[in-house]
């Protein structure tokens, strides 16, 4: 009996130490993840002169100022970059949803000759890295005189084989009987898609939408290739341009204000749709 008690006692102490170590590790990593966010917000609130006078950076500021934010939006057309990005994101995402829903519907619901072959070709395209095709796409868009246009920005990214695949899987989980029941009631294919399939798969479609929005908001490489007129810059390119030449090289606080402004929309979307985004990425990851 006493032996058992002793066993339990050491077990408890060891378990407590283990728990403490676990929480320490997790907190340290959390700190590492959060610190850049803290630092950008902190720096963006420091005045230009205060920042430059801190040879040893301070971890807090006593005189926070919002001037940097005003500067960020007035010295460079950051507002315009925002509008561009919102427009680009909205149109690309909407167009992509139409394209992938139609394709997923055809693959999951319609019977046609060559279906399996076409789907196999689609799947194999999933392995093609963007870097391989971006060269020709750059030439194509240039030749079409679509550089520095929204069309040129949008066109190459309105299809996603991966999302077609995800949605097709989802559509296929809708029981066959539902389609039969709709047929008996005289529902056309299009109406069935709009009134039954899309509403039932709404969670997946929302997840795909959010993931695409994130992707669009952060896209950098393609916009950089296709735009050199700052009228068409997206936020990433705007930020990079600010880094290279904006605000005078050393106006770090204003730069950080721009960085915060660019980061906030996505962080808000993330905090609102946290569960959806994380489960969507998880599902996508586990499928891929």
């Amino acid at each position, binding site marked *: 009996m006493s032996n058992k008690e002793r066993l339990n006692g050491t077990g408890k102490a060891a378990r407590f130490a283990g728990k403490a170590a676990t929480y320490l590790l997790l907190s340290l990593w959390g700190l590492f993840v959060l610190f850049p966010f803290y630092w950008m917000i902190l720096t963006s609130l420091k005045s230009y002169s205060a920042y430059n006078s801190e040879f040893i950076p301070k971890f807090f500021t006593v005189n926070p100022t919002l001037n940097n934010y005003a500067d960020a939006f007035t010295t460079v057309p950051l507002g315009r970059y925002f509008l561009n990005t919102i427009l680009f994101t909205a149109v690309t995402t909407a167009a992509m949803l139409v394209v992938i829903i139609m394709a997923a519907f055809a693959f999951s619901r319609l019977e046609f000759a060559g279906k399996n072959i076409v789907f196999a070709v689609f799947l194999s395209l999933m392995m093609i890295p963007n870097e391989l095709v971006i060269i020709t796409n750059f030439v194509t868009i240039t030749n079409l005189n679509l550089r520095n246009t929204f069309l040129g920005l949008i066109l190459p990214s309105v299809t996603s084989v991966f999302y077609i695949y995800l949605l097709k899987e989802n559509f296929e989980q809708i029981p066959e009987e539902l389609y039969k029941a709709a047929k008996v009631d005289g529902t056309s294919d299009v109406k069935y898609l709009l009134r039954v399939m899309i509403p039932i798969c709404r969670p997946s479609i929302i997840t795909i939408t959010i993931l695409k929005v994130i992707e669009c908001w952060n896209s950098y490489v393609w916009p950089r*290739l296709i735009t050199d007129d700052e009228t068409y810059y997206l936020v990433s390119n705007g930020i990079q341009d600010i880094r290279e030449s904006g605000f005078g090289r050393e106006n770090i606080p204003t730069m950080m204000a721009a960085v915060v402004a660019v980061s906030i929309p996505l962080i808000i979307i993330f905090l609102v749709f946290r569960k959806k985004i994380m489960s969507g990425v998880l599902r996508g*990851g586990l499928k891929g």
Partner: protein
Amino acid sequence: MKNSNFKAWLFLLPAIAFLGVFMLYPLIDVLIYSFEEGYNSASQSYWGIGFYNYSYVLRDPYFIQALKNTIILVIITVPLSTGLALLISLGLNSIKALKNLFQTVYFLPYVTNTIAVGLVFMILFKKTAYTDGMINLLINWFGGQSVDFIEGPYWAKMMVMCIYTIWIVMPFKVLILTGSLASVNKNYYNAAKIDGTSKFRTFTRITVPMISPMLFYLIITGFIGAFKAYSDEVALFGTNLNAAGMNTIVGYIYDMLYGNSGGYPSYAAAAALILFIIVLTITSINLAISKKNIHY
């Protein structure tokens, strides 16, 4: 039947059109480009067919530097981030309180603009006339000398690059591993407990084998992702990566295509195909190893 055929193709038309123009055609086109010697984008003419573009790229010191940088980045970040992610996921799965909070925080980098946050990393590590920067402050506290991590020695720049890359790739790995750890049937652990299996043995004999498919998946995607590194480097070191000596293969491709050093789609195409072959080879090796080691 005919009618339904027509309808199906109609529904597929947009997807097929876009994929055809922006994926299938470019795939063939890039191959052609890579073999067209002396292609001139102004006159759209070339003087021969052959392997010249490949041999040029493979001898270009900038490409060699980019290849070296990319490989170092891959070798350091893939094992480190995967191991760290496993450790953190194990920790996350063993706690109840604050678990959601930690998970949310850890996922944040996934939804941030990598260019924007890259700038933060830059100012954290950068040494200027006005300040040595946050990180150097820490180094000084521990008695070290200040280093310019952004425009200083090669190893310092490489370190920042690796740290930032790990910061970026961790959310996905932690999420996937936490998910697959949670999906391991609890009965295995209960059975192990009843048999008096030690924690370490439970981990190596039950946990790791059970999640091995996901681990391999993360390693493979980690390799692929790290080989395609580019925009993180731009954020840290600016668009002129060749000058910084910090270019990557993908960066080399874009530089060949566009910008001050651009206008050589043939070289870009050759470099892209070389990258594709490297990634394909490594993925195949990984898959072969994982087939041998995953038994269910």
